[in-house]
């Protein structure tokens, strides 16, 4: 984050964020992570590595998990963006969020929104993925606290939710 270049021109664009249209004026070189955190106050997406290696900045764009630290806001104009704040509906946790709680799948939770969104994307793409698929798919989301075993258990539990 915070890699905005000096002397950039501003640009007005509309994003669909968590089902709501948002018309914003942002510097043309601004990354999505910064727009979400600074302009929209959606701080569940987090900066950690800034170079696409850790997954703490993960959000869904048209259902696909992407690193918002590597994505220019202008690139996602008109697309549907889901952040962790938009996952629960009417105060009801999403089943993946609930599974993470039930299986104690976090510690400091700095990685958790990114992991939950990646899990949602995983389950969109794969019906009942096996462990190897889960490990491979979630390998881009680091958890320094090392909650991986419980995360795997939470994802396994989500299969039964899907069934």
């Amino acid at each position: 984050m915070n890699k905005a270049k000096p002397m950039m021109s501003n640009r007005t664009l509309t994003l669909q964020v968590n089902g709501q249209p948002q018309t914003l004026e942002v510097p043309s070189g601004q990354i999505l992570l910064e727009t979400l955190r600074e302009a929209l106050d959606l701080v569940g997406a987090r900066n950690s590595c800034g170079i696409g290696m850790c997954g703490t900045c993960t959000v869904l764009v048209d259902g696909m998990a992407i690193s918002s630290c590597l994505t220019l806001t202008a690139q996602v104009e008109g697309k549907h963006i889901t952040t962790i704040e938009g996952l629960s509906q009417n105060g009801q946790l999403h089943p993946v969020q609930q599974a993470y709680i039930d299986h104690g799948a976090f510690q400091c939770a700095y990685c958790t929104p990114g992991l939950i969104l990646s899990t949602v994307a995983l389950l969109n793409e794969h019906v009942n993925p096996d462990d190897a698929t889960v490990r491979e798919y979630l390998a881009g989301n680091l958890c320094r606290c090392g909650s991986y075993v419980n995360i795997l258990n939470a994802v396994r539990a989500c299969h039964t939710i899907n069934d």
Partner: protein
Amino acid sequence: MAIGKSVPMLDSVARVTGTVPYASNLKLPDMLVGKVFRSSVPHARTIKLDVSAAEQLPGVVAIVTAADFAGDDTPNLHFGSTIQDQPVVAGDRIRFIGEPVALIAAESVVIADQAMDLIELEYEEIPAIFDAEEALLPGAPVLHEAFPDNLLGHSKLRRGDIEAGFAAADEIFEEVFSSPVAQQASLETQVAAARWKDGKLTVWTGSQSPYTVRRVLSAIFDLDVEDVRVIVPPLGGGFGGKGNIRTQPMAAALAWKVGDRPVKLVMTRAEEFLTVTKHAAKIIVKSGVKLDGTFTARKVTIYWNAGAYASSSAHLVPAGMLRALGPYRIPAGHVDSYGIYTNLPIAAAYRGAMSSQGVFAHESHMDTIAHRLGIDPLELRIKNLLRTDDIFATGERLHDIHFVECLEAAADGLGWHEPLQRENGTVKKRGRGVAVMMKNTIANSSSECRIKLDAEGRVTLYTSTVETGQGGHTAMAQIAAEALGVPIEALTVIGPDTAETPPDAQTASSRSTHMMGNAVLNGAASLRQHLAEAAAPILEWSPEDLSVADGYVFVTTQPQERIPYAEVLGRKNIAALTATGKYWTNEGKLDPETGQGISTPDWHQGAGACEVEVDTQTGKVTVLRYHSASFAGRVVNPTLAGLQNDGNVIFGLGASLLEEVAIDGGQITNPNLSDYMLPSFLDIPVELKNVSLEAEGSTFQGIGEMTLPPVAPAIANAIYDAVGARIRDLPLTAEKVLRVIHEQGEADDEQ
């Protein structure tokens, strides 16, 4: 019963909805952005620092340099939690690449970055020294004139007649081990924000040591401690690194110069590597052993690379001494633990601090001995492990000792005595290894809490235990709930905030569950006493005849004569009852020449056992199965305890196989998460299991680190078991494995 249950973390919903209020999220009205201008040379005398052009830049509000500390009424330039050797910003001397030289407060990051380019620094380079052992040699460049031999600390342990011990041995073994600089790499980087108002300072920071931050800041700014308020929201990981005080003095100095607006300083990932690291260490272990596997003597020499400033090294170097011999019965033991200044970034605590390096050494060494003597590595350990009532090398009598149980639990989990299929006709070979660890905790420290019960029956626990992700607040709430006989839902935990929550040494060295946990028990006991006193006139019995449990005050002999807590307060018209609880230990005062005395209230104990596969063509090591065990005394929350055990193993896998801060001429060349790799889902064993051992009558013991230090030696021992190659320097990379396999092949050919 709330203790022993896997209660979800109290703020679980916030954790899965992304609303945990980390310091990195903090936004204050009118807040400015802080930025650090850093040195690009490892050792230099400053000739000129010109910030005038940067100051002129519109949007720059203030720039802090050492000149701001030069007057009579200015803050003090130097700080430190033990040795005050570190300047807030470098003055006439620069001591490592990346040392802060000037601080900028600006309206935006873009402006702060532009200002950085306008700062001019002229300096004269002087010779630098990066290797700890070389820094001790006569004629080496000196970092601090007060420490002419670069030695910031030398801890000595002297037990028994070491020479007689070696003379009595059948075999002498001597090996050298090394561990590299590593980085804690919390996913949330270090953050501090500061604001001054009416001569008082408030700091929001992701720190493991709120009260130490307060003390250090009050010393820098010559304030009463009460005039400094330190607020610590939940951390996005700590791992020891956030016990290092560095961002807070800079944020406070910026806000001081600015005057009326808050300033927030967030380390970038690259800056994180310049802010704190893990001690690199070189360790020489020499043992005298009888042919039956009995030890006669052990001598350990450790060179800790502390970097340019002492930070917490002054108290970590003695801890490293205590952890160096290993948990074994050895009649003569000598340790020399040297903490040494070099021109590198500061080293401080890294999860398993001063244990991981030493355990890698003594546990690899144990296997070298076992193989040479033809004794099973597990048997050699069990034969020699310390037991309760044994006398340790400090002369202290040991209590609550469970090394054998820990080691056996891990080894049995793995199936140590089952046959292992070592080869399957491919280039891959399998092997197994075990390791065990002991560490002291922070002795001579105290923890305090306050517990409030209100007229609705709600309980609020005020504690300075930092929620680092370990679930500390949940564990404390469970302890309080059980001790007061209320449901966990009745609990709210507040803190840390030095204006509201009582003092606590720090959240480090796995001390909180034990220290703060017992403070909570004491606070709850005194709150129950207050309840009995308040209820006595209502029940018309004296307080001594009353019991307090399960939400009621009742007559001990007639339990049906009872009254709910809330009603006691309601009828007596009391808004709230409050009690404080305190717990402290006085150990840790050792003789400086011999290390004799009582070093710790409790010993931390853990073990690990693993099976690895080594690809003999590429050198790649895969840990297939790992079983860990820690001694928990009494488990407060099984799920959280399991996360600590597994989290340690995964953290340890990083340090064992992947992590090394690469440094060239004092310059870190991999300060990012692409080149400095952390363990991902693909690096963890397919079978990863843990157990927390309990013991009848035992109290809560810390488990935040115990299963970490055994990881590296267990893997190194398994590699040796698989391919006969012994690697003595971490990390255990494929290149090193391959090299040792080849060297070995050549040696075999010559025979």
